[in-house]
């Protein structure tokens, strides 16, 4: 009940509106684009300190953001100019959805498989354990002590 109340309170607080901020930083657009100088890096990270494409691009982005243009608009501008390859991540459309969905799908399938396997292994050991526990009551205390000693020796 306490945990439930905390979750509700957290959810409510998270939805309180944040105050409006100043012009978005250049990185809000530069982080979404690949530098077209050939370095293959995100625009923010281009290692070329005199990059002929990256520096003018960042200046242009800064000016446009100051002028009130939205980051989404600017990203679309570069996509229109250079194609989808200018984006730092695949879009969430068409075949590109496979990129986004596959890791989570694989993890869910893996989790289901692990759950199933643990169930099988636990049931297998459960049926063996029943037989063993009947037998174990017949075991002399010395063999139990020996088993305990072995386990303690291996304990880490």
């Amino acid at each position, binding site marked *: 009940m306490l945990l439930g109340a905390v979750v509700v309170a957290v959810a409510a607080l998270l939805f309180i509106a944040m105050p409006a901020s100043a012009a978005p930083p250049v990185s809000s657009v530069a982080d979404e684009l690949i530098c077209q100088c050939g370095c*293959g*890096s995100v625009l923010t*990270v281009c290692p070329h*300190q005199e990059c002929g494409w990256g520096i003018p691009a960042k200046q242009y982005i800064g000016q446009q953001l100051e002028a009130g243009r939205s980051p989404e608009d600017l990203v679309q501008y570069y996509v229109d100019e250079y194609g989808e390859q200018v984006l730092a991540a695949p879009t969430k459309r068409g075949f590109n959805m496979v990129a986004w969905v596959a*890791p989570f799908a694989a993890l869910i399938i893996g989790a289901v498989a692990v759950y199933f396997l643990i*169930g099988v292994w636990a049931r297998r050991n459960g049926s063996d354990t029943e037989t063993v526990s009947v037998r174990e009551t017949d075991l002399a205390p010395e063999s139990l002590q020996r088993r305990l000693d072995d386990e303690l020796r291996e304990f880490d």
Partner: protein
Amino acid sequence: MNQIGYSALLLAVLTSAFGLVAPLIAVRTKSRGWMKTAERSVYGLCAVSLVASAALLYALVTRDYTNEYVYNYTSNELSWFYTFSAFWAGNSGSLLLWLVILAVFTAVVVWQNRAKNREILPYVISILMSIALFFSLMMVTSRGSNPFAMVPAGVFPANGSGLNPMLENPGMVVHPITLFLGYVGFAIPYAFAMAALITRRLGDFWIRSTRRWTVFAWIFLTIGNIVGAWWAYVTLGWGGYWAWDPVENASFMPWVTGTAFLHSVMIQEKKDMLKVWNIVLIVATFSLTIFGTFLVRSGVVSSVHSFGQSSLGFFFLGFLGLILVFSLNLLFSRLDMLKSRNELDSFVSRESSFLLNNLLLVGIAMTVLWGVLFPIISEAVTGNKVTVGPPFFDQVIAPIGLVLMFVTGICPLIAWRRATLANLRKNVTYPGLVAIVVLVALIVTGMRHTYAIISFTLCAFVVTTVLMEFARGAWVRREMSGENLAKALLSLTWRNKRRYGGYIVHIGVILFLFGVTGSYAFKQQESRTITKGESISVGGYEVTYDSFDSYDTTEKRVGTVTFTVSENGRFLGTVAPRKEYYFAKDQPWTRIDRHVTLERDVYVSLLDYSAETGEANVEVRINPLVSWLWIGGIVMVIGGIVAIWPDKRDAQRLAARYERQVRLHEI
């Protein structure tokens, strides 16, 4: 000296080829003589590769510019410190580094196993020497990979073209060599795993024999990745430390699968389970180290880390294919013998949490691999070129990472074999309460970044569970031995180095993630052109232009601006970022400067300046909690060292176990 070096490489080819074949002859003929010769060939390879390395070092130190490698990566103005690191600055030097590390490691393995593992050692030697043969062949057959290639005849350069300015950083002395120590380190458990499969000696002895090698390799991969991130942060000037660059990913993936392997082998040791899975993990880990080496040399992907495009990439791809075909073929042929008891007592058990841990770690590694390969897949299927960069990795890996953090916290609270839910609820109470208090405090103080809130809450949860483990154990020890609490804590850790070393690593990981969360979620930046006396304000900090200076050295022209850093009017310190121009390379470079505290870095870049007007184009970033990344990395390494510190009782236990298994013909 270049001739000596090249001759040593030729001898390395011959020695490693001999070392590949001799142990197999020894097995076939059951000849101790051939086995002794095989072992000597390992020491021989070690000697000749050290000679080749010494020859290259000599050429570097004496500035022998008739050696093409020396010409390309050094100059008369280069300091001795960076002259040393020029050894691995280029493709061919780094190949030689791989070879010499592998040769030394193989020699150590042979010496370590002079009285044990005699049945599998021939195959271990053969496999390691085959890897050495590949690397030495690369260097003698490809001019671009020969560290002793000469400049055209009749040319005697008076000076070299110098080291890439981005490599003139202490991090670049440490990063490549530690990464290679990690990569090559994983070849040892791989070789033992394959030898165990070949000889059908499929108990856990190969795991126990190579556990320290595995942790050793993991420690150095950790150092390599962390130092690489630190280098990127202080050198590349963009204010970040990880860009999910394909080559960064290539060193991250084996670290992740290696971490999964380290956890998963505990299950095999305790429960004799997951034998196939452990083999798959070590094959994957070693293959990923070769994959990383391939990526840097193939030109398949562009990266700031690349050595550039060369035909070598295809040889590495071929070698990788050979490793996978050989390993998987061997594994499938022994599947019947690898059947485990496969018994788990309960869903709610530490074993189950380890399985979940493995699923998540391998999930992360495969996601990264998927991201690296998807552009190629997409182009093949649709004809469209796409890029998979940081937004993809951040969005996909962050939630998986948060679940992994939770599992890291919950796992120590669950008993081996079987834990009841009531017991688990009891164990979770205190860490859960701490987490809730932290969660409420974060929200009440105004934090609204969802991932950051969850991450910080989980950090509190995990740290509490780990500290509780230490406290509980120390308290019991104090009661039993009468020692004071501090001594009890030290004795507890020292007597159970593997377990508590692992817990220290977990604390290091959480400190690291604490830093990642702060620096990702709350960074701020501002850039402007300012003149003397003017300021840039970011996030409550003010960076004020004090003075400008410009001077020349023999190597470069330097322009530097000194700034005062203050917070709400209170003076904190000064920073002096520089803009440098390297004469030999005809290349500019920006050197950032920072004001560092545990709470944040004030990170200042001098993007450009005008000596005439004194104007400076400056970028200021506030990177919260970034220092905790480096602290977390150090703690991880300390934990790893504690975990593998020699332990007499452990060695006695291993020797007794080996004896028992030999007696029972299990090995």
